[in-house]
């Protein structure tokens, strides 16, 4: 057998295996290191801080868990959230994340390592990403081999699609969920391959962990049954499938019902019905097979078939009937919005308003997955070529997850693992083909060989034929056998397919190596530039290129923490609820756990209506401070004026008569904030709070809103109901010199906080009181008509 390059032949097989496994271990270690290190950009560029919005709640809950223990945490009622309703935290969260950090924290303290709980939380996601790389390695190993596994682990370690949700400080459920997802899938594949109840149980345990950690567990709940169903339909039912699925489903479902937030959902909601249905189907088929193997009578088998089909139909009818009677809930809104994409916008604007729930344009896919994006389909085709049971799983996963990722940006996260796995399968097959040193015999050799074979065959045939009388038939047989011989030699040369020469090998390998290096550059750039911003602290560049930190959020939240009474209620849009609770430690009206639409709509109504309408709402909810985010000065586009239309929409959903979205547009249908802004817009509390005294900042020059690029009118809005409470001092003259001002505005004006005035001490309405305070004479309006003519 010719070889393209020499390989040492004096090595014992044991040495080769040992070296290979050592290299694998070292490679996995390095991959883990790379996965963790590339997630630390955020800590290096900024500091060890919790990111974004939801992580602030998780962090706050974890602090409670670490400080007071698990039982206190489990029974924790938080009176400061959703003021005045409060929130039963223990029963309304997935506790997996907090429990994980709590265990790590306690373990480290037991080892006398006094690590701060914040650092445990910040570094949890990078740590788990290393575990994800390992789980992906194990999973891909089942698909192809170890080398594909290593590639897949390297991909998932650095791919931006996963880093986006797992940088240091991104302390969210997804941080641990992807590891659990991959490991559950690995156990399932293992259980299916070996028919092992042990691996089925391990899958069930990790499924339980996943249920406790992330709402996305429904993906597993439906992927595994879908895989099982596909295998049944392909005629691949086996006792391995039966054992694996039954052990996973029975234990996993019972375990998942122990999570209070999930409760009886696995037997009541439609999301879980698929898993139950496939479980039932498997029992019926297994029963039928068992009975068939013990019976021979044809009639009895027919009877059995009828019995099996009718029980299947009865079972599905029962589910339909239960749904109809309302004992099984129909699809929940969040799930339904994945299929009917217009649904959320019409019926649940809160879901539609979240930026993570927007559909994905192709640049996002390319940014997050780059090179893998086209290796992925190639890998799926390779799975089709082999099509073992586990490949069916990858294929279904690939198709389903691509659809989901297209519908919602955040579900890119579930697509990323399968892309890594299948791209690794493709790339490692390519490398296998071109690294393998064996060369096929060159075509000239082959021709010679073929000729030899043909002549020898022909000779033998001829010799046998010569013994027989040379008839026409014999001649025909001779030609036939010649054709057969050439066919058989072709068949023999088929396993000898391969690549000739060293240069071809080097070309393909260098090309692959180049593309992989480019991929690494891309991932590093994307991670450091796009995904490592904590969004609590912003950064911009000074003209000389140095970094300038914009720390308005923390400045404002700490102002609240230090300058207001602990019971002061802060109203803001729900996006900032968790941050205010986490950093300022003050009660909030609404927060990112958007369970109460009406309460959010109340805030939306207060923000979008005029001061006179909003004031009673604020007073009834005991609001002391109102907080708005304003980016007009700095050009920060994620501010409240840009989110304002969603507030209007959500308020309109509850009060369609009082708040109407078109009122906030100009007659030409434009969304403007300058002097052409509509009346409802200019009178709204949100507009007034955002632009209050904004024009004064420009000292007579033209005031410009840098986000919307619109020139602001010189005369800004006035506020009567918000501002500092003026406690009348003894000398009235000084009152006149203190302007009614906002309570606090941060350095770059990103956060503005207003104090809600108490009712006027003299019983006047605040507008009149304010006018009086400014020395204006009360306008004499027409005296109210006391008596009407009686008709």
């Amino acid at each position: 057998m010719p070889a393209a390059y020499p390989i040492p032949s004096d090595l014992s097989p044991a040495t080769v295996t040992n070296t290979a496994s050592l290299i694998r271990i070292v490679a996995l270690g390095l991959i883990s290191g790379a996965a963790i290190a590339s997630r630390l950009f955020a800590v290096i560029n900024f500091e060890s801080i919790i990111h974004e919005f939801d992580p602030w709640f998780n962090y706050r809950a974890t602090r409670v868990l670490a400080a007071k223990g698990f039982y206190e945490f489990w029974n924790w009622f938080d009176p400061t959230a959703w003021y005045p309703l409060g929130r039963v935290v223990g029963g309304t969260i997935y506790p997996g994340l907090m429990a994980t950090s709590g265990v790590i924290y306690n373990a480290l303290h037991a080892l006398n390592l006094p690590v701060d709980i914040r650092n445990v939380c910040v570094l949890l996601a990078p740590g788990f990403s290393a575990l994800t790389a390992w789980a992906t390695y194990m999973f891909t190993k089942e698909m192809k081999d170890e080398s594909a596994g290593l590639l897949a682990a390297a991909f998932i370690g650095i791919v931006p699609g996963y880093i986006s949700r797992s940088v240091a400080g991104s302390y969210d459920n997804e941080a641990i969920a992807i590891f659990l997802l991959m490991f559950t899938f690995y156990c399932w594949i293992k259980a299916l391959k070996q028919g092992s109840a042990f691996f089925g149980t391990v899958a069930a345990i990790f499924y339980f962990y996943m249920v406790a950690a992330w709402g996305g567990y429904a993906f597993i709940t439906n992927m595994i049954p879908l895989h099982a169903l596909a295998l049944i339909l392909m005629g691949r039912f086996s006792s391995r499938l039966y054992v694996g699925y039954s052990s996973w489903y029975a234990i996993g479902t019972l375990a998942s019902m122990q999570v209070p937030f999930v409760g009886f959902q696995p037997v009541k909601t439609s999301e879980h019905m698929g898993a139950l249905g496939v479980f039932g189907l498997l029992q019926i088929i297994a029963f039928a097979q068992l009975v068939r193997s013990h019976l021979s009578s044809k009639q009895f088998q027919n009877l059995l078939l009828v019995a099996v089909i009718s029980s299947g139909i009865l079972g599905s009818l029962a589910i339909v009937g239960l749904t109809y009677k309302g004992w099984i809930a129909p699809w929940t809104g969040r799930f339904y919005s994945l299929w009917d994409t217009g649904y959320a916008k019409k019926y649940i604007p809160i879901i539609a308003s979240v930026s993570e729930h927007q559909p994905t344009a192709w640049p996002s896919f390319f940014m997050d997955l780059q090179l893998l994006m086209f290796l992925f389909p190639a890998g799926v085709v390779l799975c089709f070529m082999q099509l073992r049971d586990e490949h069916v799983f990858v294929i279904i996963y690939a198709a389903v997850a691509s659809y989901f990722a297209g519908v919602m940006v955040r579900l890119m996260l579930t697509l990323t693992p399968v892309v890594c796995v299948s791209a690794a399968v493709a790339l490692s097959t390519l490398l296998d083909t071109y690294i393998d040193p064996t060369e096929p015999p060159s075509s000239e050799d082959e021709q010679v060989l073929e000729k030899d074979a043909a002549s020898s065959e022909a000779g033998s045939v001829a010799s046998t034929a010569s013994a027989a009388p040379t008839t026409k038939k014999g001649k025909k047989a001779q030609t036939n056998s010649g054709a057969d011989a050439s066919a058989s030699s072709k068949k023999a040369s088929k396993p000898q397919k391969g690549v000739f020469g060293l240069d071809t090998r080097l070309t393909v390998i260098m090309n692959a190596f180049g593309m992989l290096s480019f991929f690494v550059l891309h991932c590093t750039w994307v991670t450091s530039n796009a995904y490592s911003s904590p969004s609590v602290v912003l950064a911009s560049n000074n003209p000389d290129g140095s970094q300038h930190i914009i720390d308005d959020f923390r400045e404002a939240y700490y102002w609240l923490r230090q300058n207001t009474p602990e019971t002061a209620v802060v109203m803001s849009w729900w996006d900032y609820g968790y941050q205010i609770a986490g950093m300022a430690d003050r009660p909030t009206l609404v927060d990112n756990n958007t369970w109460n639409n009406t309460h959010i709509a109340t805030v939306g109504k207060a923000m979008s209506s005029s001061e006179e309408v909003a004031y009673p709402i604020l007073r009834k909810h005991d609001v002391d401070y109102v907080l708005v985010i304003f980016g007009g000065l700095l050009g920060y586009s994620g501010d409240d004026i840009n989110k304002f239309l969603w507030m209007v929409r959500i308020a309109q959903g509850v009060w369609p008569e009082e708040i109407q979205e078109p009122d906030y547009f100009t007659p030409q249908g434009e969304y403007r904030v300058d002097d052409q802004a509509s009346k409802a817009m200019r009178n709204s509390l949100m507009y007034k709070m955002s632009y209050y005294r904004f024009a004064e900042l420009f000292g007579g020059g033209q005031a410009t809103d840098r986000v919307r690029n619109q020139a602001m009118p010189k005369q800004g809005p006035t506020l009567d109901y918000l501002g500092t409470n003026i406690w009348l001092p003894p000398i009235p003259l000084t009152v006149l010199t203190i302007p009614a001002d906002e309570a606090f505005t941060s350095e770059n004006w990103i956060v503005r906080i207003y104090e809600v005035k108490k009712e006027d001490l003299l019983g006047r309405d605040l507008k009149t009181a304010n006018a009086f305070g400014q020395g204006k004479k009360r306008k004499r309006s027409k005296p109210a008509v006391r008596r009407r003519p009686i008709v």
Partner: protein
Amino acid sequence: MRLPTVLGALLAIPLTLAQSAESIHQKLVDLAAAGNGLISLDGDSFDLLISPKRTWSATIQFTALDARRRCTPCKEFDPSWVAVAKSWANAPREHKDNHFFATLDFDNAQTTFQKLGLTSAPVVFVYPPTQGPRAPANGRTAPSKYDFSHGFEPEPLATALSNHTPVTIPYKAPFNWSRWGSFAMGGLAFALTLRFIAPILQSRWTWAAGTMATILTMVSGFMFTRIRNSPYTAGNGQWIAAGYQNQYGQEVQVIASLYGILASTILVLIVIVPKQTSEARQRLQVYAFTFATLAIYSILISIFRVKNKGYPFKLMF
């Protein structure tokens, strides 16, 4: 005895007003009956319909259906409007006459359009009653606008307008014969040809092709264009949408085919090239396909650079 006369006069004024309002109402009822539930307005009847002392409510579609006006959305919306308006004729008798559906075409009442400051069509205004038991409690009698973000379809229109009518608009979507018919025909055809197409359905390559098509269209942003109703291209022939989080329909096709070609070059290198028995031809194929991968990949990156201006890397182009 002057007081009674004054009182009498005072009483008489609202009485006459009521009289006239009554007659206007009767007129409108007749008009609606003549138009089969939908009043076709002109400037004068418009003033009657929105007379300041109305006890009825009205929804009015302002449109421009004349071909010269070239208002495509008007034509798209009109059938839904007519369907909803006609369904109001089936409302209970005692409520039916308290709400009117009307259409005002631009060519019949240009001055009214100017007076209302309308510059675009179609627009649907809801005029609440100013008097009587159904007058809004907060005294807001200004018309409100139907929000077209609900869509042009009749169902959302009927749902949204039902907030303003005395009873829910009894709109029922007409039975879609063609849809169910084609479903039934499709099912029947499938059942009949099952025996012949079974080998195709059982072939893994059929499923492979389907899966590939699904994956490639999905990861090229097809759902984005569906949900956002992106146009196929911009009007000026530009096919790449500006902005990182935006795209046109043609981009889906271009990107999907680029991904598809790249994936197939990889597959050719893996599966087909090693089968080649001639050494020279195989070498040529290896070089050709490797170069093709690199070149198309570079094209992909250059398109991505158009979308993401800050992207610092490039390959060949």
